[in-house]
């Protein structure tokens, strides 16, 4: 549900994409998926209605983390893995800011894994764009926590030996309140989803299947390429059945404890058998099953997988402060110094 944060001042003038583009030369590789994300974010910023000077873009280390330099807002380029912790401090300290985190798969799920899950658990109000290219790009091609098992990379010349993370597992496992997935080659859809994320109250995680043209080109091709897109992507819509395929002829049905692909109208399957997407269901069981679908057996679920209402840490902190101000006799530091067991000489 789109609900602007009333604590963030609104812009007096109508802003547009160009108001947010910085004068810095963008130094990502030609053809990198990041360019599309930058363009999309610059379109979403004005849609929120917030004042320009109340945006803060925060990042860690990696290709994605150069992002703050390329948007004309307040920006903070942190250290590897720590953007979520830095951003948490910002929003808690000053709730009148709209906080955006740009992070990669290595930044958020390897070196910064701890901060990532705990920011999500606390539900600090911020939007996190997770650039998932399944590789360490800035260090030139080592495997990351999302690189598929067996992949040949510079540090795995004979194939990786480890099971990758599915970001959705971490987000939902950490009791995340918002998780969406989009691909870098569907910019309009990306903008739509990012706007929803921006206006979500709490930690909104948007995983972007982003292509690293140099070190892991086509790593998402099985999902994102034009040829297979219709069959291998299922664009979720709240309240709508899980249908996909060129003419939406296929759907997802729950069979026992498993999902299966079926075709309504065939073998006695009707449209009523198809699961209806409910991203706001507090119980994440079905959302988790949907998030785990992968080609070739299933289409990959795209769009908003989970979006539920829950208290955010920053608001609870403010409420607690107000409650304590109302009941406490302590009004200033002198009151503290003069409390307790005072001895007068």
């Amino acid at each position, binding site marked *: 549900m789109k609900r602007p944060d009333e604590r963030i*001042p609104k812009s007096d003038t109508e802003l547009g994409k160009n108001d947010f583009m*910085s004068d*810095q030369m963008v130094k990502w590789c030609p053809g990198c998926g990041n360019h599309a994300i930058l363009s999309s974010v610059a379109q979403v910023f004005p849609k929120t209605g917030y*004042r*320009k*000077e*109340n945006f*803060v*873009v*925060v*990042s860690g*280390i990696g290709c994605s983390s150069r992002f*703050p*330099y390329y948007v*004309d*807002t*307040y*920006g*903070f*380029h*942190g*250290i590897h893995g*720590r953007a979520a*912790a*830095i*951003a*948490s*401090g*910002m929003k*808690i*300290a*000053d709730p*009148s*800011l709209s906080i955006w985190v740009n992070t990669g798969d290595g930044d958020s799920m390897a070196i910064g894994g*701890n*901060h990532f899950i*705990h920011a999500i658990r606390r539900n600090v109000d911020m939007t996190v764009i997770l650039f998932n290219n399944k590789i360490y790009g800035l260090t030139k091609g080592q495997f990351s926590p999302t690189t598929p098992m067996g992949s040949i990379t510079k540090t795995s010349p004979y194939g990786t030996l480890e099971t990758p993370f599915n970001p959705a597992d971490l987000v939902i496992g950490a009791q995340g309140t918002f998780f969406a997935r989009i691909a870098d080659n569907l910019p309009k859809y990306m903008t739509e989803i990012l706007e929803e994320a921006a206006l979500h109250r709490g930690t909104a995680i948007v995983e972007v299947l982003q292509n690293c043209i140099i070190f892991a080109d086509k790593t998402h091709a099985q999902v994102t390429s034009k040829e297979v897109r219709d069959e291998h992507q299922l664009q979720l819509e709240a309240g709508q059945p899980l249908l996909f395929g060129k003419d939406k002829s296929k759907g997802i049905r729950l069979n026992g404890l498993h999902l299966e692909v079926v075709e309504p109208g065939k073998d006695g399957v009707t449209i009523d058998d198809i699961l209806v997407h409910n991203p706001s269901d507090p119980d994440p069981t079905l959302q988790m099953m949907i998030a785990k679908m992968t080609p070739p057996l299933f289409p990959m679920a795209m769009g908003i997988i989970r979006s539920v209402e829950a208290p955010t840490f920053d608001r609870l*902190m403010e409420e*607690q*402060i107000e*409650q*304590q*101000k109302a*009941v*406490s006799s*302590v*009004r*200033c*530091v*002198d009151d*503290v*110094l*003069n409390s*307790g*067991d*005072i*001895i*007068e*000489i």
Partner: protein
Amino acid sequence: MKDVIICDEAVIKFAGDSGDGMQLTGTLFSEAAARSGNDLATFPDYPAEIRAPQNTVAGVSGFQVHIGKNKIHTSGDRYDVLVAMNPASLKANLENAKRGATIIVNEDAFDRNALEKSGYTSHPLNDGSLEAYRILKAPISALTREALADTDADIKTKDKSRNMFVLGILLQLFDKELDATRQYLDDKFGKKPLVAHYNRLALEAGYSYAHHAEWITSTIHVNPAQLAAGKYRNVTGNMVTAWGFMAAAERSGRPLFLGSYPITPATDILVELSKYRALGVKTFQAEDEIAGVCSAIGAAFTGSLAITTTSGPGFSLKSEALGLAVITELPLVVVNVQRSGPSTGMPTKSEQSDLYQALFGRNGECPCIVIAASSPADCFYSAYEAAKLALEHMTPVILLSDGYIGNGSQLFKIQKVKDLPPINPPIAQAGDTEYQPYRRDPETLVRQWALPGTPGLLHRIGGLEKTDGKGSVSTDALNHEKMVRFRKEKVERVANHIAQQSVEGDPDGDLLLVSWGGTYGTVHAAAEEMRKKGIPTGHAHFRHIMPLPANTAEIFGKYKKRVVCELNNGQFVNYLRMTHPQFAYEQMNKVQGQPFLVEEIVQKLTDNLNEQK
């Protein structure tokens, strides 16, 4: 009537099993002494385990109190009175009792099993080994059970009240009144009136028992101290570290944010600050040490007085982020309540061995302001100054405290916040069309703080090197060198804004004792002793370490000999050898997880002077 012995000062050690409640007993005794006008200092000494194996020496928890009619600088070398709740506490503490000291033992606890576990091969109360002391044997367990006989308390609850019985004995022995302690118990256990009742019964029984016991032939009266008029409170260093930051936040008009992760012995600062939501204090108990400092850096970027608190191992984890705060030139205070290292070391034991880490422990050319608190009460002023320097000079400040002063207590003269020095952070103003992130004040080299939300000051900073002024990403060779020099000189120029180094005692002469941090009290007392022996001695105690006060060399030049005393292998002395190589230094070091004793410093200095004669 008992005789009354009048003393100028007394050192009392409460020792028992780690579940015996000795910390509370010691604290309550201190409060009673403070109320009667004594100056005091305390020092808790406890094992890292919450409940170490019963009756073992390793499980002994102690609380030391030094009370007096004169200014008390340390928690005392040796005990006049030792309370030993079991054989292990006697064994662990006897060594530091004065000859002739009064030792109060719970004789009920001296059974065969406890004696064996504590490693005694013969019964110390019967074998004549304690002849040099005045031993007061009391069946404390039995008497406490008796005092609670008419209540419904079970045996376990009755036994838990033993510490209050002991407190009663001590209050009687030291001629202190009971009322305030009774009141305290009622307040503390307000929600458990039965527990309050049991404790009061035990306290009163102990008090009355000691009054009537014939073996207590005399009481000890320590006259009130001649403290300057004013209001005082008995405070621990960690507690007033928190208050110092709160005062700085109020005085600077900046909101207070603490990002922290629990770690012994620094946790109590987080605990204390967490109480003051009513003052708008935001405490964030992070998922780890790194998130503690990083959240603080985030808060600093948005305009808060940002603090992170930790101890040695956590300080190591924060190193990378500290570099980020240095290069982004944001105000941040990192408190390191030092403990014995390396690694986990001895978490509950104090040391001064993180000075090198504070000065040098980061990648790159990465100078930080380093200051050190000298006593529990001074933690207030040190925290306040650390915040002031960070906010006004836009750079991280490392505040070194330690377990000894952090957990130790002292009387603190209550200040008015408005009487503290003003704090004026260089906040950039909206619409400043000339604003640049790295534009500097020509005198201090300090950049301005442009807070998000302010129109016209949009900028981006971060861990990458930036161009002078404009602040865009730069790998230009000469620009980098320039920025490195700016950051260094900015910190060095802080020397123009801090107090000159002072000397206590003789302003010139044979001997200058040099110290820093939590050893102030002991070294101060040792210098006094040396002067009593007729040796002209000065004492220079450093609060400002990076940068050093501008007159440091001038002071060092006035003495024939400089002895640097510190609880490490010689970190400050080597730093002085580096920064002031024109002087020769001698060093006195102790790395045992325990504070210096005044007598050991005096002894070593005397031996050393004799050798050189």
